[in-house]
């Protein structure tokens, strides 16, 4: 008799769980996994989570009649941690969208999980163009920048100025390789020549040895195909060893947080490409100041993109009245994005969000008039001119 009761109770509980799960599917749960503690955490990290939360709050905090939930985790730059976190959130917390963060290795791994589980996957922090090229999926939206855009932006501009011979200092993982490959292609297509490259381990502390190898190549340009802390230490060492006197140092991926950390005295004149800058127009300044009030730092372009991408996703969910990934993706791909971050941004069939990019130069200390006044925009780069073209794309979804 007792046994029977237990069975009944279990069945009731199971039924309750089942209905709970059905409800949970309509609740918007965003899972954000990025580098929260290591070399890229100033680029996105907690600031990225803050930007996403700001978007959720500005949206009203609710979608489909239920509170929007944000889950965050630190992937410690390990692809396996990132992927298992995404899987756990989808399986046990009902995550409807996975927000992948900095580090391309982790991004490629989480994108795969999202595809397998049919969840929307958005990413701003990672650079590898493979996300919307060889490794494109129907659920990926690569929103901010990518290595192709950086290569065409900075690489193209320098070769046009007559800097024809290049040597790369490359971070030895997916992102660094992609950036080196994409920039080499741009340099060579424009008649330049790549004289060599040296690949350093991620998060290396001493760059002097690599820099001397670069110097002995006699190339005109030292292309830094790395990011975050690695770029900072390379620029610093290049200055110390007088390499900036014989070679033009080009940061292929430089974030505002790097410039802030190095100081204009060390990076004044550094040419690079960015997807957004807080002082570019009124709407951007407004967002920048709002963010500054919370974080006491100006947002990087990645953090601004985090806000914009979250808004885009939430608007799509509200419009199609479901969290079903196929329907949300369909809506997002046909709806242009217009906000402080992007003007007429379009999500292409390969998942690439195409928008204007900016060739910028770090100001000299004398030109900087206020705190965080670091960049001047040299050239606006129309999205079509910098992102992968249909002819170059290897994405099967865009053929």
């Amino acid at each position, binding site marked *: 008799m007792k046994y029977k009761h237990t069975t009944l109770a279990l069945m009731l509980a199971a039924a309750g769980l089942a209905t709970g799960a059905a409800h949970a599917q309509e609740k918007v749960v965003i899972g954000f996994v990025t580098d929260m503690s290591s070399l890229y955490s100033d680029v996105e990290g907690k600031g990225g989570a803050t930007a996403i939360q700001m978007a959720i709050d500005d949206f009203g905090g609710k979608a489909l009649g239920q509170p929007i939930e944000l889950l965050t985790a630190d992937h410690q730059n390990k692809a396996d941690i990132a992927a298992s976190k995404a899987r756990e959130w989808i399986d046990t917390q009902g995550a409807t969208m996975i927000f992948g963060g900095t580090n391309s290795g982790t991004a490629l791994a989480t994108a795969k999980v999202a595809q397998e589980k049919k969840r929307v996957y958005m990413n701003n922090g990672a650079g590898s163009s493979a996300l919307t090229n060889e490794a494109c999926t129907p659920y990926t939206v690569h929103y901010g920048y990518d290595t192709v855009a950086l290569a065409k932006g900075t690489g193209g501009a320098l070769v046009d100025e007559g800097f024809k011979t290049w040597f790369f200092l490359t971070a030895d993982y997916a992102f660094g390789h992609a950036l080196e490959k994409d920039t080499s292609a741009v340099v060579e297509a424009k008649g330049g020549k790549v004289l060599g490259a040296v690949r350093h381990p991620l998060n290396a502390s001493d760059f002097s040895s690599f820099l001397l190898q670069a110097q002995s190549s006699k190339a005109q340009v030292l292309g830094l195909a790395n990011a975050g802390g690695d770029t900072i230490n390379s620029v610093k060492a290049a200055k110390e060893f007088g390499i900036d006197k014989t070679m033009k140092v080009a940061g292929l991926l430089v974030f505002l947080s790097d410039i802030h950390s190095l*100081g204009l005295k060390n990076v004044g004149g550094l040419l690079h490409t960015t997807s957004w800058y807080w002082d570019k127009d009124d709407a951007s300044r407004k967002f920048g100041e709002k963010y500054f009030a919370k974080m006491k730092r100006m947002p990087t372009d990645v953090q601004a993109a985090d806000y914009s991408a979250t808004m885009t996703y939430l608007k799509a969910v509200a419009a199609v009245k479901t969290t079903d990934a196929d329907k949300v993706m369909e809506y997002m791909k046909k709806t242009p994005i217009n906000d402080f971050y992007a003007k007429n941004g379009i999500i292409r069939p390969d998942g690439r969000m195409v928008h204007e990019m900016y060739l910028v130069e770090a100001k000299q200390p004398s030109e900087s008039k206020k705190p965080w006044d670091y960049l001047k925009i040299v050239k606006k780069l129309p999205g079509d001119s910098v992102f992968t073209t249909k002819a170059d794309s290897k994405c099967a979804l865009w053929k």
Partner: protein
Amino acid sequence: MEFFGISLPGLLSQLLLGLVNGSFYAILSLGLAVIFGLLNVINFAHGALFMMGAVITWMAMNYFGINYWVMLVVAPLVVGVFGVLIERLLLRWIYKLDHLYGLLLTLGLTLLIEGVFRSVYGVSGLGYDTPDLLSGGTNLGFMFLPNYRAWVVVASISVCLATWFVIEKTKLGAYLRAGTENPRLVEAFGVNVPVMVTLTYAFGAALAAFAGVLSAPVYQVSPLMGQNMIIVVFAVVVIGGMGSIMGSILTGLGLGVIEGFTKVFYPEASSTVVFVIMVIVLLIRPAGLFGKEN
């Protein structure tokens, strides 16, 4: 003249750069060796103490305008006092336990210290300018050597040798070494062993901070700088032999040079070469190159 496609000047410059990095390894592994020798504690907090040396130097400059040369003395003192607190309040209680507890305790401390600094300063790091006296560089013919890097080698090798001299050749050192062998007997001769132990830990901490001050103008001062360094330094200590003073100095410098050459011939492996050597040494000489088998 070329060796395996690299010119002789190229090799010489890499040798020199290897020595610079080796100097940091030497001074850090020396501190670890001294602490392990007397306390039998595997001091995982060493990287955090190194970082504190650098961050305190940065703070002194930015908040109080105190220059590099003063901090070269003050930062190790401050961190040394911090070391006294760690030893008196925490480590003292676990000497009777297995080594593993010391390792866990100091690892926990590291996470705490790094976490505090990370939440205040972020991870991108803070810039620290080279002191005016040492800015610029010298053209050696085969390379341009920043004066500051030359100073790092000179300063750290001097400090290492002085430490070696004190421990191996003076009466104070004799007490220390005797205390390591048989603390009870030494105490019976009227030597205050607990104080000696406290001071030894403080000295090890001060050495780490000294290396931190030296590194401030070279690397970006960041809460994570110790983390990057400490794992390699542990490998250095294992290769040199736990508790061997001269062994840790020589191994530190030697491995810096080997790592430097790896950066030329196969850069991708430069972060792992030290560990490969560690594995080989452990297989052939488990006590390390300079360690004594018990």
